C-alpha cells in the first residue's frame, strides 16, 4: 500500500519449479501412541482443510518466507512447523491444480490454492504427504 492506495495483486502464473509452503500446527506431529515427533513429517491430517473442502491453502515462495508462513496463524504460532511442496510434483497428482490466489483480506499476496475434487481428498492428502519435504520443524519444546 502506498499513500492509502492499495497495490494491485494480480493472479500470476506459477512456474513448475515454484515452491509452496504450508503451515502445519503442532497437533499434526503426534504419531504412534500420541508421541510428539517434531523431526518427522506431519501426519496426513495436515493436508486436509475442513473449512475449504477441495482446496488447500499454501504460500508461494515468491511472496512468503518459511518463517513468515510459520507465524501466519494458530493460537501459538511459534509452535507451528512448515512443509514444502513443489508445484511440478503437486500437478503430477491426478485432477489436481494449483492456482495463485492472492488474499487481500488477510494481506497475503503469496496465497496459493491447491485444488482438487472433494471426493478425491483421501488420495490428495496421502500423495501430498508423500511429496512434501520438511522446511521448518516445530521447536522441540512446542508440546507445551
Amino acid at each position: 500500500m502506498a499513500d492509502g492506495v492499495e497495490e494491485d495483486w494480480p493472479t500470476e502464473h506459477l512456474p513448475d519449479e515454484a515452491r509452496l509452503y504450508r503451515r502445519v500446527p503442532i497437533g499434526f506431529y503426534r504419531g504412534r501412541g500420541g508421541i510428539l515427533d517434531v523431526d518427522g513429517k506431519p501426519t496426513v491430517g495436515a493436508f486436509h482443510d475442513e473449512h475449504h473442502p477441495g482446496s488447500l491453502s499454501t504460500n508461494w515462495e515468491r511472496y512468503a518466507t518459511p518463517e513468515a508462513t510459520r507465524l501466519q496463524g494458530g493460537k501459538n504460532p511459534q509452535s507451528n512447523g512448515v512443509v514444502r511442496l513443489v508445484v511440478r510434483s503437486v500437478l503430477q497428482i491426478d485432477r489436481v491444480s494449483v492456482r495463485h490466489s492472492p488474499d487481500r483480506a488477510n494481506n497475503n499476496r503469496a496465497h496459493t490454492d491447491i485444488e482438487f475434487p472433494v471426493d478425491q481428498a483421501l488420495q490428495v492428502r496421502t500423495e501430498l504427504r508423500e511429496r512434501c519435504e520438511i522446511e521448518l520443524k516445530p521447536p522441540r519444546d512446542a508440546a507445551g
Partner: protein
Amino acid sequence: MTTAVPETRANRWLDTECEQLLVAGERDWTAAATTDWPRPTLSSHDRELGRIRCTYQWSGASTQAFAVQLLILRHVPRPQFPVADQSAEAGISSARWILSLAEDWDDNGAPAIQEDTLSRMELVVRDAVRCAVDSGLTLPEPAISPIPDGSIDVQWRWESHLLAVNVPSMPEKRPSFYATTNDGIHFGGSWDSSVALPVLAWLMA
C-alpha cells in the same frame, strides 16, 4: 526354431517347487526339475523383491539350442513383517490416544474424534488383516491418524506400496480407500470386506 513353453506345466512346477527350493538353498534347487524338462539354471534371484529368473535350455535335433527364460514372481517369501494380527493389534492399541484429543486439536476448529469412529476403524483394520492372513499375506503395522473432519485415516505401507483407508465420522458413510504401487499404478473407491482381498492381493502381487 521356436517351441512354446508348456505354460501349465511350468506353472505347476513353480507352484510346488519354487519356494521350497529357494528355502533349501540355491545350490540344490536345480535338482527338482521335472523329468521331461531340462534342468533349469538360475540366472538371478532377488529374495527381497520376491523374484527369480531361471533358464531352461534344450538341444534340438538340429543341435540348435534354444532357451526359455522365466521370470517368477510371488513364489518366494516376501520380507518378513511382524505377525499380522499382532501388528494390527499393536497399531490399534497405539491409536487409542486420539480419543484424548480435545476439540480444536488442529488449531482450526476440528471436532474431537468419537469412540464410535475409533471402533469402526478397529473393525476395518481387523477385517483387512483377516483377509490378508486368510490369503497367506502379511501386513505391517498400520499408521493411524486423526483427520480434522473427525474421521480417521489408516495407512499400511510396505516396500513402495501404500494402502490408505479413511473411516468417516458419520456411520452411514462407507469407508473409502486409495492404493498405489511403486510403479505409479493407483486406484481407489469404497472399502468393505468384499474389496479388501482383491485389493490386498493386487498390491502384494
